């Protein structure tokens, strides 16, 4: 296996680790910037089977940091999962790559993680991460949280019922429309590379049977402010709703993160389940970076390319320019934040 010779030479992997990698299946959830980097590293490392799921299509503004995609993919608006699948086949034809163009929700998440040895977080919103946490803890699948905005990123590895889960650390899903996103605050590729690299290293340790080498904490990096720190997170929360009490509220149909309603031609209403009053002026301030913004005491309206998002004080939004529910949810996550 000349192809993997340098990796096999490395003590942490070895022949045995390489064999285990070839027999493993990983799921990359969300194939944007983090997901692109994860999929490429896993394919090059010789993972046996790779499942990639994403709800979006490639746009020109992705190319600065999303390494799976080309100008041609953006011109042709190829779904990201499809473009990533093609690229993986070019990188390593031994990898069995399954791709799915889908919005990950409570209706499909358990099917998507089935048969996977590790799940890598490449999503762009809080709500899907809590959904992944619930599904992975319920089915005992390890997953690696990772996220980045601006020059800052954070990552944590969850081994269900062995290490703390996401809800042990953050008991509540943060309210919608409360945080900056990559589409409002920007993001640079170096922080993506750092976070994805740690996520993949953790996955390789898990798959190669070297869990003792996991970092065991919550790592944060800021490649612009030059800060690197780790909080050791050893103990699971004694009252964790998910990994101790076994309540998986995001998996229940009635309590999914969002409701969506088609409203006429070319418009979808997106409403977060956890209703909250939002600060429209603050949201308008963040959105000005993303397009033309109008604000009045009742709503904020953003024009971004061919879409128009109207966000109301109760965090509900009408997305005009599409009747695709998945796309509407995606635009909401990108601009308003969930």
């Amino acid at each position, binding site marked *: 296996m000349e192809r993997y010779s340098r990796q096999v030479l490395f003590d942490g992997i070895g022949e045995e680790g390489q064999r285990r990698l070839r027999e493993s299946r990983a799921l990359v959830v969300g194939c944007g910037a983090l997901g692109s980097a994860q999929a490429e590293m896993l394919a090059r490392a010789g993972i046996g089977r790779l499942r990639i799921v994403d709800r979006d299509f490639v746009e020109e503004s992705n190319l600065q940091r999303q390494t799976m995609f080309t100008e041609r993919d953006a011109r042709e608006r190829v779904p990201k999962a499809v473009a990533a699948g093609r690229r993986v086949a070019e990188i390593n034809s031994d990898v069995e790559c399954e791709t799915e163009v889908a919005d990950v929700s409570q209706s499909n998440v358990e099917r998507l993680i089935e048969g996977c040895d590790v799940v890598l977080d490449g999503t762009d919103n809080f709500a899907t991460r809590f959904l992944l946490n619930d599904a992975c803890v319920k089915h005992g699948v390890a997953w690696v949280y990772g996220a980045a*905005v601006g020059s800052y990123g954070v990552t944590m590895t969850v081994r269900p019922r062995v290490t703390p889960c996401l809800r042990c650390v953050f008991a509540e899903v943060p309210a919608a429309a409360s945080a900056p996103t990559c589409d409002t605050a920007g993001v640079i590729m170096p922080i993506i590379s750092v976070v994805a690299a740690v996520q993949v290293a953790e996955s390789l340790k898990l798959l190669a049977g070297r869990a003792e080498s996991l970092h065991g904490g919550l790592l944060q990096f800021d490649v612009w402010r030059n*800060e690197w720190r780790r*909080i050791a997170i050893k103990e699971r929360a004694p009252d964790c709703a998910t990994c101790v009490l076994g309540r998986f509220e995001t998996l229940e149909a009635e309590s999914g993160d969002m409701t969506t309603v088609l409203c006429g031609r070319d418009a979808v209403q997106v409403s977060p389940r956890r209703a909250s009053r939002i600060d429209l002026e603050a949201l308008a301030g963040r959105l000005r970076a993303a397009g033309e913004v109008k604000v009045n005491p009742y709503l904020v309206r953003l024009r971004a390319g061919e879409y128009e998002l109207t966000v109301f004080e109760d965090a509900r939004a009408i997305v005009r320019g599409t009747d695709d529910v998945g796309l509407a949810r995606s635009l909401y996550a990108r601009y308003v*934040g969930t």
Partner: protein
Amino acid sequence: MQIRLNGETKEVADGTTLQRLVEQLSLAPDRLAVELNCEVIRRTDWPRVTLFEGDRVEIVHFVGGG
């Protein structure tokens, strides 16, 4: 008194609780993990935990992008 916040010295009033510190920093509490002297403190305990001279506080932000 002085504490160490994310590796830097910070002056805070005597009797400051973790809750007060987070409020003073204008941080959104639902997106933070707070560690005091190498131990993670749950959000529900922040109002009850008072800081002392030389305490080491680490605050990690949970972000959503990707």
